[in-house]
């Protein structure tokens, strides 16, 4: 290896010159926050739009009548009443134990 090669390797191996932050990190953090906020707004808007569309479709497909039918059948269901009673007893027993 001649002198030129040694000098070149020495120059190439020198660490990259330090770049002062000068607010760079703060700008990145600000963009991160802005990107997060716009992502959240977009997801919320998407959810609301999807829920609205679903409600419209379901109401057109007879959702109110279906809900009424289901509610009535649930209210008149003996197994459901037994299950609810068992659940209430369990909750009560747990509370007594906790006390």
């Amino acid at each position, binding site marked *: 290896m001649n*002198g*030129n090669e040694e000098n070149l390797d020495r120059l190439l191996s020198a660490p*990259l010159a330090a770049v002062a932050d000068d607010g760079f990190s703060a700008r990145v953090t600000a963009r991160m926050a802005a990107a997060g906020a716009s992502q959240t707004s977009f997801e919320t808007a998407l959810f609301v739009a999807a829920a609205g569309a679903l409600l419209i479709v379901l109401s057109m497909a007879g959702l109110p009548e279906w809900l009424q039918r289901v509610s009535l059948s649930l209210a008149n269901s003996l197994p459901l009443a037994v299950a609810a009673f068992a659940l209430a007893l369990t909750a009560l027993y747990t509370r007594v134990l906790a006390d």
Partner: protein
Amino acid sequence: MSDDGFAARAAAGDGAAFGRLVQQHQSSLRGFLLRLTRGDKALADDLAQDSFLEAWRKIRQFRGEGSFRSWLARIAYTRYLMAARRKKLEIVSDDADSAPSCGGLEPGVRFDLERCLARLALGERATLTLCYAMGYSSEEAADILEMPVGTVKSHVLRGRRKLLAMLGDAA
């Protein structure tokens, strides 16, 4: 705390932990991009910001198999390739053999390494920077640049040869 520790916290949604990673790595990443962009500071900073934002979005994909620094450098290199394609940055002559000299190493004559590096092809600039200035092994550089190790080594050899020729012209 190590980079992996901050990265794990960032993956759990801790923006402040990622902010620490930005502070720790901004200088080397911007320096690397400055070499790639041939000293275009504005473009290098834009690409560095975009790289950090992409890293933040994809932080859960960082498994800690390699270092955070090399994962970030890979994102930055890909970003630069996309920008270079869009802006046709690498069409400018990559033939450094016929380039005029960049100064010499004799006393009183300053060899302008940055100017000479700017005359090299992208692969040569990138591999010389990663393997020499940033201390990566050929294997790590190959992983960052997504090219075979043999290609990295030949880029390094060719780049060095061109730089030596420029030095020789200057001598």
